[in-house]
């Protein structure tokens, strides 16, 4: 090695270049947004990247929620997980239990020195993603909730007041009867059976869906929807089904086109389906809050959250975490939030964003778009923060499988609910066992 001045200079230059303010730090973001939402994600990243020079958020579509989870698990095991991962709400318990794999958002923000006030977020939204200790685990991103849609034209034709949405379940039954008398083949249908009629239903009536405050208290939770209220509701639905007032149209969101095409006159589903309805419906439609039973004390409380949040994975460099913190700060900005909310129909996650949207007259222009928000901007009770159970994907499938047998006439509601509880509890036991093992390590 010849130490001449040239080499020294080159060395110094190299050292200087490898200093802190060199190339952009890339922050990998894996998500599952498709279609128009895919564009939304890309635009968010693009705008953030354009607003500063230090960090570059790189969004990558990694399949639907199940697939991106598998991808992340595979990547983590191999040592190359992304910095940010979008995980659907039913995966929350699994992610929270994976302490060695995730870095709580609260911690990320604090360590990066970025200002962060959990109280600025809509209570029912942020509470869901917060640990029992009070630390925010993941960053709420695209949140929706369950609402009620109805076909105003069909109402008018059946002699119902199109501007008065049924607000209670008895009213829904009455409206359905009138619609059927007027020739409707499908007065009412629903998507996401478990989410709407068990989970959200429970929270809306301030009733427990599972013990230990729906799983927020710990992994020892067990299902509890064999209560008289739940049973009454399902017997109601079963009767409706027998009379042709409620027509089952499939799992998940498969039923949405049935409403959009005009086949079904009333529909409960995600607030996120608004975009579909607005685009495809050839009739006047209305949005309203989820129906409830007026004789239940405490109803209506608030509904269950759906959608996904952003989790931060362990094992990345501090510079990347700082980039993540800056990005989350950007996303919390009221203008950004408000624009996202207007564009996608997802809930605004901060109170400031909600107020900004209201001031802009958006809710007046598009009536009904604030229904979802008003359902969630309530102070939550211990029983209504949300549902956080392990193995929840399997449990939802079990609920789908068992309730389907009611509509098919194979099981009575009581039988189906108890079978669902039994099988679901087996899943929860497995989860508890695995969590204990993980905690012990």
């Amino acid at each position, binding site marked *: 090695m010849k130490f001449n001045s040239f080499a020294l200079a080159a060395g110094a230059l190299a050292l200087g270049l490898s200093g802190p303010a060199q190339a952009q730090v890339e922050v990998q973001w894996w998500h599952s947004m498709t*279609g128009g939402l*895919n564009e939304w994600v890309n635009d968010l990243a693009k705008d953030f990247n354009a607003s500063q020079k230090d960090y570059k958020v790189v969004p990558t579509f990694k399949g639907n929620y199940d*697939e991106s989870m*598998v991808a992340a698990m595979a990547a983590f*095991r*191999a040592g190359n997980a992304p910095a940010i991962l979008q995980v659907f709400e039913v995966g929350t318990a699994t992610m929270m239990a994976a302490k060695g794999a995730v870095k709580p958002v609260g911690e990320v923000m604090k360590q990066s020195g970025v200002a962060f006030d959990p109280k600025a977020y809509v209570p029912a939204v942020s509470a869901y993603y917060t640990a029992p200790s009070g630390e925010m685990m993941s960053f709420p991103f695209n949140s929706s909730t369950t609402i009620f849609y109805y076909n105003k034209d069909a109402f008018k034709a059946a002699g119902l007041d199109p501007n008065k949405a049924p607000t209670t379940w008895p009213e829904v039954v009455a409206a359905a009867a009138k619609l059927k008398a007027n020739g409707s083949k499908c007065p009412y249908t629903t998507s996401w059976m478990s989410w709407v009629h068990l989970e959200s239903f429970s929270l809306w009536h301030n009733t427990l869906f599972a013990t230990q405050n729906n799983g927020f208290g710990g992994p020892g939770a067990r299902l509890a929807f064999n209560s008289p209220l739940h049973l009454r509701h399902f017997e109601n639905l079963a009767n409706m089904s027998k009379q042709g007032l409620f027509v089952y149209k499939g799992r998940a969101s498969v039923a949405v086109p049935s409403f*959009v095409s005009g086949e079904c006159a009333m529909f409960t589903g995600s607030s996120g389906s608004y975009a*579909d309805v607005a685009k*495809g419906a050839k009739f006047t439609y209305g949005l309203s809050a989820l129906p409830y039973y007026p004789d239940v004390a405490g109803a209506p409380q608030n509904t269950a959250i759906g959608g996904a949040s952003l989790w931060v994975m362990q094992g990345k460099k501090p510079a990347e975490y700082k980039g993540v913190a800056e990005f989350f700060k950007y996303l919390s900005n009221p203008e950004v939030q408000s624009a996202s909310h207007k564009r996608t129909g997802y809930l605004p996650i901060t109170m400031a964003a909600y107020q900004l949207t209201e001031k802009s007259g958006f809710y007046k222009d598009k009536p009904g778009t604030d229904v979802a928000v008003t359902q969630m901007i309530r102070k939550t009770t211990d029983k209504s923060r949300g549902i956080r159970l392990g193995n929840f994907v399997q449990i939802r499938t079990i609920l789908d499988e068992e309730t389907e047998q009611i509509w098919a006439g194979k099981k009575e509601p009581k039988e189906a609910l108890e079978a669902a509880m039994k099988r679901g509890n087996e899943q929860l036991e497995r989860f508890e066992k695995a969590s204990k093992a993980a905690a012990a390590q």
Partner: protein
Amino acid sequence: MVERRATMGLLAHAVMILGMLIVAFPLYLAFVASTHTSQEIVQLPMPLLPGSHFWDNYSAALTGHGGGAGSNAPVGRMMWVSLVTALVIAFGKIAVSLLSAFALVYFRFPLRSFFFWAIFVTLMLPVEVRILPTYKVVSDLGLLNSYAGLTIPLIASATATFLFRQFFLTVPEELVEAARIDGAGPMRFFWDILLPLSKTSIAALFVIQFIYGWNQYLWPLLATTSEDMYPVVVGIKRMIAGGDSGNEWNIVMATAIMAMIPPAIVVIFMQRWFVKGLVDTEK
């Protein structure tokens, strides 16, 4: 074939047309869907005749329609990745399997049976089941996000070897004996006699493997880390909105139809190779 009996001919045509209609009906629907607006498609019932939006939809799909879905990775780039992947898988699998099948059928060596079953058992555990460990292996080898990583793990299955084995077993013994008598070595026999005879099998396999490679979804999704290595099917899936947001079915169908064109071309092109029968060697 030999006689030209009218009723048989008519029956054959009738069966073919019926079969074709039934089998190709879903494709026809896809095409029809790609020529309407998305509202027209979700109205009950979907129209059965093509609509008038052919150019709108296809150009929108090609240019990543401004205002629409996933314009991140352009269709052209994805088609290229799919093409390279499919070709490498097809050629790779055929080459490797021809050699293995040849060894298994025409040689006697210890552990021959063992290797046959070892190769064969690869059919019994599909990729999806072993995807996490496979991912780790590929990652450890540094092959993520590369054509090698996209293709080599998919060459590891035995379909082609099995098919060639079946075919080689039907080749008349006289040919092998004649070759040996002529003093030709095994590789000579392989090149000059066996390969030409295998043309139709190779052609059939090429079509199947090309399409198999072309339609890969789950593995490329995991094995790539940047969207510009996505094959076309991932792009299509990315447009089909899942839970909450709206689907532009017409654009999805247009992209799907376009994605089918290269495989369709391969099918048509390879047909020539099917028609050539065995060279008449039994004279």
